[in-house]
């Protein structure tokens, strides 16, 4: 397992979550100003950072190797399977693609009835809820093999890029191919979850090719996911935008 693959998975996953969080912060900023919206976002980020430090440390301290591997493997499977299924459904045209402009409009409508305090809370809650998924990815991908720094650094790098881009354009970041990224991240997280869970159950004998199995698993989930999406699209006759 290389730190690079952990970094890439965490960076991509965090990137799409921060894009979604930015849309909420933007709506709040248009309502109560950038200063207050940014303070709400920073408060949520501080809470997430504290959670990451605390839970990451606890995972390292309290669980031995096999338990840690099994526990985080199952969590990754629960998370990755969900992401990949949603991305496949969207790719197949069975679910609508997320539209940041529509999300901004919905948030703006909601904020029209809110006072400043309520608007601040909307930004805080939005960043916190989107950030919880980032927290989960960092604390599950990080501890195995001592890659918490790589996973946390990736999430932070994605945050800086999204925040800087958002501050520059001051509009929803609609050009980010969210579903394609979620498809890839779902496959990667499911790959790590599959590998670690079975290794925790069966030891090294479960994977005769060791960590060389990881790329094969990732390709299997990516290619298999595309085949499933194609089958579902054909079966439903849904129209899918290119």
């Amino acid at each position, binding site marked *: 397992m290389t730190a690079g693959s952990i970094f890439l998975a965490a960076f991509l996953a965090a990137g799409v979550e921060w894009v979604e969080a930015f849309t909420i912060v933007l709506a709040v900023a248009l309502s109560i100003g950038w200063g207050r919206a940014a303070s709400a976002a920073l408060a949520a980020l501080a809470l997430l950072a504290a959670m990451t430090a605390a839970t990451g440390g606890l995972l390292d301290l309290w669980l031995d190797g096999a338990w840690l591997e099994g526990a985080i493997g199952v969590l990754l499977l*629960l998370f990755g*399977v969900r992401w990949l299924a949603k991305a496949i459904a969207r790719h197949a045209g069975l679910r609508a693609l997320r539209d940041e402009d529509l999300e901004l409009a919905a948030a703006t409508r909601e904020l029209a009835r809110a006072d400043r305090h309520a608007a601040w809370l909307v930004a805080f809650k939005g960043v916190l809820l989107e950030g*919880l998924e980032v927290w989960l990815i960092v604390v599950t991908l990080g501890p195995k093999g001592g890659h918490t720094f790589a996973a946390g650094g990736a999430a932070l790098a994605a945050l800086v890029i999204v925040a800087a881009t958002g501050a520059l354009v001051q509009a929803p970041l609609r050009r980010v191919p969210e579903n394609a990224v979620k498809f890839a991240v779902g496959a990667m997280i499911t790959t790590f979850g599959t590998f670690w869970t*079975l290794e925790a159950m069966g030891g090294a004998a479960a994977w005769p090719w060791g960590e060389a199995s990881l790329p094969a698993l990732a390709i299997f*989930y990516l290619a298999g996911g595309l085949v*499933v*999406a194609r089958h579902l699209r054909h079966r439903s006759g849904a129209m899918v935008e290119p």
Partner: protein
Amino acid sequence: MTALFKLLVGDGRNLAVVAAALALAATLVASGYAATAAVLLPLALLVGIGWLAAG
């Protein structure tokens, strides 16, 4: 807390897919077929993912 639980576990269908796939893998590993589990676990998960996506 509900949001955190939903974040960690997802819904019942998601939980059922992962639980069923892991039960299959655990049975194979306990029976001495760990290498077979390495093939069937990803397959079972992909079938489950397809079922979730279709629903």
